[in-house]
């Protein structure tokens, strides 16, 4: 899939060149102050692992080596059949059963150890793998002790098991070298293909583009609104499978708020009302103990400490994502309620009270990031995901921006760590690394790389651009029958409901990444491929994809409202002053009034409304008008209104039968 096959490779930008590839100039309606070009290039690596990772791995292998040394000693000394079996069991899981001649028990030991590793990854019980390994060794010692002269052990195992261990180690090291060499070759080849690519990094726009939502956009948005406008203690429509991993309800809350926030930023920045209420509900539902109680168990079996506080340690999969929710809400709605001490308090009975606010949460996350040699910290105990830590970083960025702080040191640290310890030589991402032990494990590549792009863009746009364009080169074929020909089995999972077989979730994340990068050509192509397979279901004016999880549907709604650099603009930069001072639509009936567009220039307010439940005569509430000032309402039979002494007014008897444009301007 060489980039030369794609229309945008024309090094002299053509009229249809995607905006992100144009070397200069602003798009219509998107006046940006300045743009700069950056090279898209995979950094060359001379070693497979970065220095922090190497240090962790060395420590791990020293510890395992001590166990091997003990096992070898017991094997050599041959003090008794039990001791020898135990020693061989320390060399390899199930090694003791080779000695006792029990192949079934050997296989079960290997399976149990493997399962223990998987459970360790999934839920973090740190003692489970050593218990499985040592437990199997202990069992083999017991079994060996029961052998009699008439049922001897297999003495040759004392050589065979150590030889197998040596072979495994040699094979592992060789495979690692080969894979690293191949990855470097792929990286160099990739750099040749992208050598002419120049990604555009732009400053924030003076006036962020605001476009009107169409009927389908509003139908998708209503899914998020109906979920979040329920009473705080009602959860109908949310998915409750488990609270430990990706299907957890916290992610549904996170992405519901992100979707609402993105729709507000790109379509209705001058509307709060029920849109703000839904975001608040999503934030405050996180305080329900059912959402966060899982952490006490993970902290216990993963960190061996009893501390139910869900934010105090690790668990960036709650604190980081949630921090972004809070920061976005405050920024977009000009509402600093969550800065008040204790405004975000986790309660579970009178003895469990964990008060937080946006400031203390951000400081905690900043501390976690800066105290980690990876400048990232774990989700499940021990397990670091750069994707999840990016939310912690974005929380700090949001708080710093809103409070006059500075996150540049953390951004630099994260960026350095990412390139050093979480990138491979071929430009692919290490999605999961064990922060204690150093080793990484495979993950769904398309999902894990595409999800990173929009969330890295706020703080590290060059990195996001590089990830996107190299991933695009590797994974997309816009001219072929299959736009994602390299999609793998691990990507055919909907992590929101653990359903295997469909790649709708993966395609959704690619669309989101492409939209954020301004690569509408790729976004549209992947969206078409998604629509060719997915079925849309509708009810009461709400649309969603059938068979796609709640999480997936909300992520798709987020993608729907995303435009080029929207996430970056929304998180990293202040809104135009006019958006924070100008008139606002503060109240409207839902679903009677669907707000397709709401924008202010600081003096006037422009609205586009659609009926959501048939024609209606309704009332609109405005705020942030100039107190006592008169305004003219165009579009609802020309009217004159006067703001009260708090700058508020209600516009009654607005007939909304179809699309309605309203302008409220000073008289």
């Amino acid at each position, binding site marked *: 899939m060489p980039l030369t096959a794609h229309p945008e490779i024309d090094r002299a930008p053509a009229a249809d060149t995607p905006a992100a590839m144009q070397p200069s100039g602003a798009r219509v309606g998107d006046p940006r102050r300045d743009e700069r070009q950056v090279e898209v290039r995979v950094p060359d690596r001379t070693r497979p692992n970065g220095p922090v990772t190497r240090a962790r791995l060395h420590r791990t292998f020293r510890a395992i080596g001590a166990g091997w040394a003990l096992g070898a000693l017991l094997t050599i000394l041959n003090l008794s059949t039990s001791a020898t079996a135990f020693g061989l069991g320390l060399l390899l899981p199930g090694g003791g059963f080779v000695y006792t001649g029990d192949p079934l028990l050997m296989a079960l030991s290997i399976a149990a150890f493997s*399962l223990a*590793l*998987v459970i360790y*990854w999934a839920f973090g019980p740190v003692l489970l793998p050593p218990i499985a390994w040592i437990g199997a060794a*202990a069992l083999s010692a*017991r079994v060996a002790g*029961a052998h009699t002269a008439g049922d001897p052990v297999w003495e040759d195992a004392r050589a065979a098991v150590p030889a197998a261990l040596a072979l495994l180690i040699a094979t592992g090291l060789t495979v690692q070298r080969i894979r690293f060499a191949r990855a470097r070759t792929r990286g160099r080849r990739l750099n040749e293909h992208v050598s002419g690519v120049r990604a555009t990094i732009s400053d924030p726009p003076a006036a962020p583009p605001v476009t009107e939502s169409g009927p389908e956009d509003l139908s998708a948005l209503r*899914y998020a609104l*109906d*979920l979040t*406008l*329920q*009473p*705080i*203690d009602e959860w*109908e*429509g*949310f*998915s*409750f*499978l488990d609270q430990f*991993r990706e*299907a957890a309800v916290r992610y549904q809350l996170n992405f519901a708020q992100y979707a609402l926030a993105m729709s507000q930023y790109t379509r209705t920045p001058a509307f709060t*009302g029920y849109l703000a*209420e839904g975001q*608040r*509900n999503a934030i*405050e539902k996180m*305080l*329900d*103990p059912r959402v966060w109680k899982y952490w006490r168990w993970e902290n216990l079996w993963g960190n061996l400490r009893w501390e139910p506080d869900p934010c105090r340690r690790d668990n960036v999969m709650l604190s980081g994502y949630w921090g972004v929710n809070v920061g976005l809400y405050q920024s977009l709605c000009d509402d600093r309620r*969550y800065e008040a001490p*204790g405004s975000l*308090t986790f*309660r*579970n*009975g*009178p003895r469990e*009270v964990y008060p937080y606010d946006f400031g203390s949460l951000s400081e905690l996350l900043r501390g976690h990031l800066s105290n980690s040699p990876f400048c990232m910290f774990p989700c499940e105990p021990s397990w670091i995901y750069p994707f999840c830590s990016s939310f912690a970083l974005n929380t700090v960025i949001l708080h710093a921006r809103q409070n006059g702080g500075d996150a540049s040191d953390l951004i630099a640290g994260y960026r350095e760590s990412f390139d050093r310890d979480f990138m491979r030589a071929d430009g692919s991402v290490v999605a999961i690394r064990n922060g204690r032990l150093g080793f990484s*494990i*495979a993950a769904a590549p398309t999902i894990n790389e595409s999800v990173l792009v929009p969330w890295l863009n706020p703080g590290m746009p060059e990195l996001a651009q590089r990830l996107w364009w190299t991933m695009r080169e590797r994974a997309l074929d816009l001219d072929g029958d299959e736009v994602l020909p390299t999609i793998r*089995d*691990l990507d055919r*999972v*909907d992590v929101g*409901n*653990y*359903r295997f077989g469909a790649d709708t979730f993966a395609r959704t994340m690619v669309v989101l990444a492409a939209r954020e990068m301004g690569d509408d050509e790729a976004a549209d192509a992947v969206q078409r491929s998604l629509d060719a397979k997915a079925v849309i279901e509708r009810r*009461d004016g*709400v649309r969603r994809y*059938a*068979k*796609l*999880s709640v999480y997936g549907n909300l992520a798709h709604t987020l993608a729907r409202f995303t435009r080029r650099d929207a996430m970056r603009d929304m998180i990293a930069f202040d809104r135009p002053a006019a958006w924070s001072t100008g008139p606002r639509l503060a109240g*409207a*009936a*839902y*679903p009677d009034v669907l707000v397709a567009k709401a924008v202010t220039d600081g003096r006037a307010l422009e609205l586009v409304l659609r009926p959501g439940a048939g024609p209606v005569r*309704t*009332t609109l509430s405005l705020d942030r008008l100039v107190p006592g000032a008169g305004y003219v309402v165009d579009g609802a039979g020309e009217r004159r209104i006067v703001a009260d002494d708090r700058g508020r007014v209600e516009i009654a008897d607005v007939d909304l039968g179809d699309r309605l444009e309203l302008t409220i301007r000073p008289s």
Partner: protein
Amino acid sequence: MLCCVVLLAFVGMVLRRRAADEPFPPPARSEAATQTRLARVNTEAEPPSHGAVNREAPMWPLFLRGAALGVLVYVVAVTILQALGVIESAATSNAEWLARDAAFAVLALAGLLIAARGESDPTATTNSHPAAARTAAALLIGGGVAWTLAALVDMHLFGMFEFAHGETLHGPVFHSVGFWAVVAGSLLFNRIEDRSATARPNAS
């Protein structure tokens, strides 16, 4: 990463609900202008009401009680199986059996007493789970774990008994009792969680 795929598939089989089963959220309504929805977090002096409403009885006493009962059930089962000749004693003397029985009895009694103390919190309420089903699920899970551990300790650590020669299936069946109890309890618990999540109280 085949093991990850296998685990996720297992988790999916045990816990998954079909996406179509997750209903659409109920159509929300927000009246014009100043009307607002229900409970909010009070960000001022008073604690949030929803925190108090959601105060539930802790689950760990139920798990512990289940474990204690599981140990007792296990001891009884082993006694019956021994009497039927399904298992044969491998202990060297009756004193070993006495010590083993005493140890299990002490463990079970301690578990019951600690569980009783844990369930005595007068401020806790059970408001979101059917109590009987919740108890049953916890007992199954606790009992299943206890059965599994007790069997491993009994047979493989202390070598108290073994299955009659030639009976190759009895061992796996015996050991799997605990596993299936945990699975059954987990499925029941998951069903309770789903029902409580979708239950809607009458509007006030």
